[in-house]
């Protein structure tokens, strides 16, 4: 993954993408035990066309010119299928702006913080998101105060209450 991240950093330096951050299972792995996943979810602000449409074309053109090939909904960069995902709501946009600066071996990169990951998992609400959210909470890596503020700001309190009732009877 080191080489993959180096390519992403180069894309950012070349201005092909704006600020990016890792989300999804690989970001979750930063905080909890590893889980099976096949691709690397990279969130970013997509360059908008003159008409305001989001377009992935410049990203794919840049990468394909360097020999990387699309693979389903992703593009394989140095052995990792990378899925570029636009910041599709204010929560993701904020997660991107506040992503944690980390280093993978020698390569600097960014991952969503545990609180934003938790809020996104709650927002998406698939069974695997709930499982990961429970693990995140169990690891104690989440700042509960910060999460509460985040959930309130993005209107996720009702989902949180429902999640607590279903899975966290003992949550304080």
């Amino acid at each position: 993954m080191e080489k993959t991240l180096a390519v992403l950093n180069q894309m950012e330096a070349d201005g092909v993408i704006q600020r990016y951050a890792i989300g999804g299972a690989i970001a979750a792995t930063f905080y909890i035990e590893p889980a099976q996943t096949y691709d690397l979810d990279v969130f970013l602000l997509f360059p908008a066309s003159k008409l305001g449409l989001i377009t992935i074309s410049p990203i794919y053109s840049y990468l394909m010119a360097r020999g990387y090939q699309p693979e389903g909904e992703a593009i394989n960069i140095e052995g990792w299928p990378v899925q570029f995902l636009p910041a599709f709501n204010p929560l993701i946009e904020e997660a991107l702006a506040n992503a944690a600066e980390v280093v993978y071996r020698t390569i600097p990169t960014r991952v969503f913080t545990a609180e934003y990951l938790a809020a996104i998992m709650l927002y998406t609400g698939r069974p695997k998101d709930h499982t990961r959210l429970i693990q995140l909470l169990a690891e104690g890596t989440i700042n509960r105060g910060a999460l509460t503020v985040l959930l309130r700001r993005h209107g996720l309190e009702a989902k949180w209450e429902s999640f607590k009732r279903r899975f966290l009877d003992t949550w304080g």
Partner: protein
Amino acid sequence: MEQKNYPDVSHIFAAKEERRRQLAALSWEEKVAIIEKMRQAMPRGMWHDSATEETDAQKQKRYRTLIKQIIEHYAEQRAHKNTEELICVFDAHNDNYLLVALATDQIGRSHTVLLHIRIKDNHVLIELDHTEQGIAASLVASGIPEAAIKTG
């Protein structure tokens, strides 16, 4: 009712929990290395989980929603820059989705179909595309697989 004696398995669960904690405590690099090994051991597509696999009907429903959102978003953006009237025509029954522009200028009144997308046989067909950037990229960015998109 006869009282049965069951074995105490709490030590098994405790050991599992401890193992989970140990895994979580590994460095990010070590954890990603584990994921890379898992990917090699069980490559994508090696098995299919019928419970989680998207059915054709679910796929169609998802495509329908995405197409509508993309057309509406495009119309909204275009409306800011043009004086024409934009009409989204959605026929979910037959899966035809159009964007029509109505305008009046010195020459007269014009009626233009800017976009016509339809869903057929689990594919998204772009029958007509007069958008500047091409709608296909937005469809792909929204999560519709490139292989499922066909141009007319």
